């Protein structure tokens, strides 16, 4: 019943019931009531407006007069006590704002740190994977922890390859001997690097290092650049290539021939 009455009341408020024959007249006035006229009426300028709206202006004037004649209400004791306390400090709002600012700055710092760490693939595996998958959603390519393992494996393989003779320059110490176990770029397995003209021996088995000048040929009987000596199965003359070595070998051969005879 109450709802029905409320609905009925609201309907009558919004759509005023029309008396006999005055619907068109009311609508005309409503349409003609432009903003300027309404402002005149609301300011109480009854003399300047349409005589038909003069009654409305009287209502407005009565409302204005009533407001002007309204006495100042007595201030309650609660309000007086309130005045002694003063307005609520705005510091509370400032403190909240500052707290929010600090929180936002901290969040930003964390995001930046995570971003940098993730871009360099230095975060713990779980965090890295989480950041990677999150960044992938927004279209950013951030490496995951799997990529890190792959990189580590590639690095280890490169290291092994370098130690095996095919590595980069400088893996083998300068002046070191080639034991023939690995194949270098300049020689086959079991063969020493070729000597340079005039007896110079490359300092680097790889052949890229600076050549070490050999001793003068007349003073060198043994390969000075190879302190360890050639492998047992390799003739010494092939290793050194010195002219004196050939004469010794010929002498040895002649002595063997004599003994055989």
């Amino acid at each position, binding site marked *: 019943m109450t709802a029905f009455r409320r609905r009925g009341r609201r309907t009558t408020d919004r759509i005023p019931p029309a008396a006999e024959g*005055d619907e068109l007249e009311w609508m005309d006035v*409503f349409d003609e009531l432009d903003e300027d006229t309404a402002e005149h009426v609301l300011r109480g300028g009854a003399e300047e407006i349409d005589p*038909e709206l003069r*009654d409305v202006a009287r209502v407005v004037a009565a409302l204005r007069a*009533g*407001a002007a004649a*309204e006495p100042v209400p007595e201030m309650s004791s609660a309000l007086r006590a*309130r005045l002694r306390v003063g307005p609520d400090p*705005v510091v509370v709002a400032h403190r909240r704002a500052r707290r929010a600012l600090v929180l936002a700055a901290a969040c930003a710092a964390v995001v930046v740190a995570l971003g940098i760490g993730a871009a360099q693939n230095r975060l713990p595996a779980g965090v890295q994977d989480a950041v990677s998958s999150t960044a992938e959603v927004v279209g950013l390519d951030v490496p995951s922890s799997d990529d890190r393992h792959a990189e580590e494996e590639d690095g280890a393989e490169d290291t092994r390859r370098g130690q095996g003779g095919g590595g980069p320059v400088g893996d083998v110490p300068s002046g070191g001997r080639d034991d023939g176990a690995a194949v270098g770029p300049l020689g086959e397995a079991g063969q020493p690097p070729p000597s340079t003209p005039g007896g110079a021996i490359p300092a680097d088995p790889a052949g890229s290092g600076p050549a070490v000048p050999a001793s003068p040929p007349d003073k060198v009987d043994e390969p000075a650049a190879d302190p360890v000596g050639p492998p047992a199965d390799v003739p010494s003359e092939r290793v050194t290539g010195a002219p004196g070595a050939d004469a010794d070998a010929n002498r040895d051969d002649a002595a063997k021939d004599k003994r055989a005879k």
Partner: protein
Amino acid sequence: MTSPGEPADLDRTVAEAQRGSVPAFEHLYRDLSPSVASYLRWNGVVDVESLTNEVMAQVHRNLGRFTGDSASFRSWVFTIAHHRMVDDRRASSRRPVVAEAEIQESAAVGDAEDDAVTRLSDGEVAALLDRLSPDQRDVLLLRIVADLSLEDVATALGKRRGAVKSLQHRALATLRRHLDREGETS
């Protein structure tokens, strides 16, 4: 201490009240509380003085958060008043009711004077306002009693300016129609 009659003075008084000046707030109270009380009274609030004090207490409490000029301060105060009035209306479930006896008495006084200069009695005005929808009445009272602009009323009621303008036109048209009808019957 200046009197808050002019906007500049009102700005200064508000600033002093925000700094905790009791005399400044008392000036604001004297300046604004009659309008607030009138707005509440036309809206059918029974205990006008008590609710006006509550409104002004809330104004004082939230004064530190207010930013703006004198016009927006007035709008801000009436926004608080409107919200408190709505709360009171909901709590008491009362609509603006004016006793029939008061209307009859006021009408009798009005009949004795010339129509051109006769002021309508409070009872007649209240009876006319009761014909309006709550929204129409709020708009009309905020425009006339609180002396707010269309924009300020829109802000206070949380409506668009166009909606407020439409409500204002309907309210004026409704008043005119009822006044015409009463004129014909009398």
